[in-house]
């Protein structure tokens, strides 16, 4: 099967959805635009609020390990991408981080204007007091009693019903991800949405893909299953990191652009638990409303509130046997925080493709990463105890379960040590893979500051793989702002250059 489009967007997450919306004026002028999404198109009725049934929303059912096995990546594979199952955290990229990136022509003023506009479109709000559940209240109390700054997290939600199933797909449509905001606008403007479309290669102005049958209960796409070649004047890759760099490697672009697959960061994260003496029912209400940046400058991490369902909680706890049964029998008393470490770019960490064409993330935690994560466990332990928890569970502690009697920082530092970190055994996860197609002008840069791939004027990247270094904060708003820039460049220059309109 063959098709012809003016612009093809690969991916429908924060980057793909945003760029599709940006290109609506071109679609209205008659440009043929398509969004190709590898995953299915789920209707709201699909989201059953059951953990095991919703694992299909994630790539590899939520268990995509890096090659060393040290970290498990969670990434969405569906229309809406990871914005379908994120918690709606919408931080702006901090100015000092942008300064560290050293990307010519990318100014904070430019991004700020876009942030403002996008925040309006996706309804970013500061959560009201009525949204704060007991877990968040206790976190606030704990940080305050330690004298640490505690701030509210900006969230993109509208008429939230506070049912607590954000990470399993929001079936009320309150979370304003691209499935709710950008994609419907783009589709109603005439942009084609093609779900179940697995792009396996790109060549000069061509996209090679396989259309798969829609899984039961999902919305069918317009094309029949089978192989397809799509001719397109402009191709925008927004499949997310690591899939966008993986696709470029598979398509042979690495020979001319050796920086593809390099400069990656994962934001290694640990979810930590404390047992509160009374039920706090963290599984209802909005899971994430507060964070502290007390240790951002000194130790490279944020601590945020969090919540996870029973099975995923057992993965994070890192314990088994009697300890696991005891802790899980008090599941409704668990206070939960998430440590988000902003890692540095390391030359040995990279995205590769194996002999079977499967995208792999080569990543090993450095000593510095492990030290930061251990420091974060000690500080989280202090928050738990300050909030009133009786016992805490720390993956780098020996023993893992610590009772309230050992709550002074010195004792905690003796119990929680980097030597107790055992790769693979100690649970570390990532929901923010970044980099692999760094923007800039250096020898490792893959695109310019507008996402246009060096040496290929018809090819753009518009997702988190553009980040030359860690974004430090949850990256979705930054991805949207950068995708908005890419869209602007296509409207102003890219499309005219090809002369196809």
């Amino acid at each position, binding site marked *: 099967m063959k098709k012809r489009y003016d612009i093809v967007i690969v991916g429908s997450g924060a980057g793909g959805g945003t760029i599709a919306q940006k290109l609506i004026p071109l679609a209205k002028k008659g440009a043929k635009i398509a969004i190709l999404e590898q995953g299915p198109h789920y209707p709201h009725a699909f989201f059953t609020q059951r953990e095991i049934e919703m694992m299909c929303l994630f790539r590899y059912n939520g268990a995509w390990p890096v090659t060393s096995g040290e970290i498990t990546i969670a990434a969405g594979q569906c229309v809406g991408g990871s914005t379908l199952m994120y918690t709606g955290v919408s931080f702006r990229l901090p100015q000092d981080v942008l300064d560290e990136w050293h990307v010519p022509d990318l100014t904070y003023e430019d991004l700020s204007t876009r942030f403002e506009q996008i925040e309006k479109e996706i309804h970013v709000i500061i959560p009201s007091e009525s949204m704060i559940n007991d877990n968040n209240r206790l976190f606030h109390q704990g940080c305050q009693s330690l004298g640490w700054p505690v701030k509210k997290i900006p969230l993109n939600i509208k008429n939230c019903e506070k049912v607590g199933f954000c990470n399993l797909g929001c079936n009320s449509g309150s979370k304003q991800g691209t499935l709710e905001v950008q994609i419907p606008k783009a589709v109603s403007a005439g942009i084609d949405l093609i779900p179940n479309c697995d792009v396996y290669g790109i060549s000069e102005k061509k996209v090679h893909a396989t259309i798969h049958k829609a899984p039961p209960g999902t919305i069918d796409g317009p094309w029949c299953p089978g192989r397809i070649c799509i001719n397109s004047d402009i191709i925008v890759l927004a499949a997310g990191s690591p899939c966008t760099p993986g696709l470029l490697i598979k398509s042979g672009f690495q020979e001319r652009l050796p920086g593809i697959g390099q400069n990656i960061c994962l934001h290694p994260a640990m979810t930590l638990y404390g047992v509160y003496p009374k039920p706090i029912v963290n599984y209802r209400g909005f899971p994430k409303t507060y964070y502290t940046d007390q240790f951002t400058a000194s130790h490279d991490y944020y601590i945020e509130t969090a919540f996870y369902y029973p099975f995923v909680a057992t*993965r994070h706890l890192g314990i*088994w*046997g009697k300890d*696991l049964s005891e802790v899980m029998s008090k599941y*409704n008393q668990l206070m939960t925080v998430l440590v988000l470490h902003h890692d540095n770019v390391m030359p040995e960490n990279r995205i590769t493709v194996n002999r079977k064409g499967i995208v792999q993330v080569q990543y090993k935690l450095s000593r510095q990463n492990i030290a930061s994560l251990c420091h974060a466990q000690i500080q989280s332990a202090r928050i738990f105890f300050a909030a009133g928890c009786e016992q805490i569970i720390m993956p780098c502690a020996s023993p893992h379960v610590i009772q309230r009697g050992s709550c002074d920082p010195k004792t905690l530092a003796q119990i929680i040590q980097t030597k107790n970190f055992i790769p693979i055994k100690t649970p570390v996860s990532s929901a923010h893979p970044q980099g692999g197609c760094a923007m800039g002008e250096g020898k490792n840069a893959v695109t310019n500051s507008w996402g246009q791939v060096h040496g290929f004027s018809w090819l753009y990247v518009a997702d988190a793989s553009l980040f030359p270094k860690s974004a430090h904060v949850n990256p979705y708003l930054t991805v949207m702002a950068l995708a908005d820039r890419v869209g602007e460049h296509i409207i102003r220059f890219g499309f005219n250059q090809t002369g196809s309109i």
Partner: protein
Amino acid sequence: MSAYLSINGEVIFREFLNYFSINMKDAHYFYDISQYEQKTMYKCQYIKGHRSRTILAAADCIIPAHGHLESAGSMNTIGVMDHAISQMPSQLRFQFLLFISIVHILGIFFGGRCFARNRKSDQIRQLRWMERSVIRGFRMGFLGLKSYVCMGYFTRESTWASIHYGGPLQYDQPPTDSVIRKLCQNKCKVYV
């Protein structure tokens, strides 16, 4: 409710067959047994024989009974695990099943017999050794085993009450996969 009736219906139907000494192969004269069994029975595709015995024993070590919490080693846990394993990429599934066989055999070095027949303390010692092994494959394998046991146990509704988890608010939302829903609701009888 309908599944409850159907499970009880199955018992009555089998008793009827036994009473008249009717071979199950001939039962289709009375009832479309294949269609009937699909609705109420789940036959494990991958977890069978020594693997099912190994997983049952390992599950009891990973999640032992505590208070109202039952231990995880049950056919219901195996059923959910088997269904999840059937969805795995084939290479990963092969590795997982191979690891279970290795756990089974390595039991000899920890208690003199295969894993499932060793004493509980020897089983725990073996699992702990694998969890902390210098060999990456053992650590990965143990993590996989533990994750699948936890999945097979904590996603089941009968467990939710014991851990005080309220479950979905839209309880009757139609399932995306009716088999896994029935398995998680203990509405399927699991056999190997």
